[in-house]
């Protein structure tokens, strides 16, 4: 679960705890001398590992510098790599993303790229050496859920690294669907932090992820065009 969008540190702490997450994203920004309380203090109290991101970067150069600053500040070489194309859609810029991923992998980072739901790009990111691929369900913060389940399935089928559904989830059923499609995890923030009850939605997400994973491993029934009776026709009382 990410930390973006929570109205207060108290609400964030409650939501993170309820979600059961062991890893959470933070953004890197200029220090604000007037800031009171640090998100890092909350994460330390909760015992949750930090995953810095490069949110807000528009070029490979910006993202690489931000990742290096994060490594220096937080002592982790893990990075959620985000390189967006514009502020309107927040969609990834695939060319800048691949370029940044290549540089960071070469520099020893564990790169977790936020990517579009394009199976070809996901494959390329894996070939570059990314440790996972994180396709979006729909645009960040939109709550539109998974707009292209078919593409997510294609990514899952071909991936040799974990697939983490990132962005666009709106409610628990979206998280369950991601897991049913075969994703290894989901990454979400807005659906929880901007819910009316963040802690309750966080708990719902935790259960949904578990349910979706169970359903995936249980093996769903094939879809059929017509009905298939679950009760035998033999032995029916005919009244004659």
């Amino acid at each position: 679960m990410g930390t973006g969008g929570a109205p207060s540190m108290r609400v964030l702490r409650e939501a993170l705890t309820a979600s059961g997450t062991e890893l959470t994203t933070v953004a890197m920004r200029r220090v604000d001398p007037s800031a009171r309380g640090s998100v890092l203090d909350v994460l330390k109290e909760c015992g949750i590992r930090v995953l810095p991101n490069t949110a807000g970067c528009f070029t490979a150069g910006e993202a690489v510098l931000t990742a290096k600053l994060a490594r220096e500040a937080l002592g982790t070489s893990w990075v959620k790599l985000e390189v967006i194309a514009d502020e309107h859609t927040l969609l990834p810029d695939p060319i800048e993303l691949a370029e940044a991923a290549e540089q960071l992998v070469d520099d020893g980072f564990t790169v977790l790229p936020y990517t579009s739901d394009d199976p070809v790009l996901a494959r390329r990111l894996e070939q570059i050496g990314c440790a996972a691929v994180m396709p979006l369900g729909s645009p960040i913060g939109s709550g539109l859920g998974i707009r292209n389940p078919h593409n997510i399935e294609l990514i899952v089928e071909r991936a040799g690294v974990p697939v983490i559904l990132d962005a666009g989830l709106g409610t628990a059923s979206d998280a369950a669907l991601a897991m049913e499609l075969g994703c290894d995890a989901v990454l979400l923030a807005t659906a929880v932090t901007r819910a009316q009850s963040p802690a309750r939605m966080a708990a719902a997400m935790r259960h949904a992820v578990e349910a979706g994973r169970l359903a995936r491993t249980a093996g769903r029934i094939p879809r059929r065009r017509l009905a298939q009776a679950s009760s035998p026709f033999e032995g029916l009382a005919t009244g004659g």
Partner: protein
Amino acid sequence: MKIMVNGEPREVPDGTSVAEAVASVTAAGSGVAAALNDEVVRRSAWDDTPLRESDRLEVLTAVQGG
């Protein structure tokens, strides 16, 4: 001499180090990183890295996001 710290112009004495400039914007002992003219300066080198006229220093930390 004049430098930029987090996008803001500042007048500092000649010989001011990265460590001193960072200390002017945050007292945090950890969780902070600095870039001088787009190059990361390791914390261990802050004391020994002097600033020069027109240098751009960025001092970043983690905030809620993502």
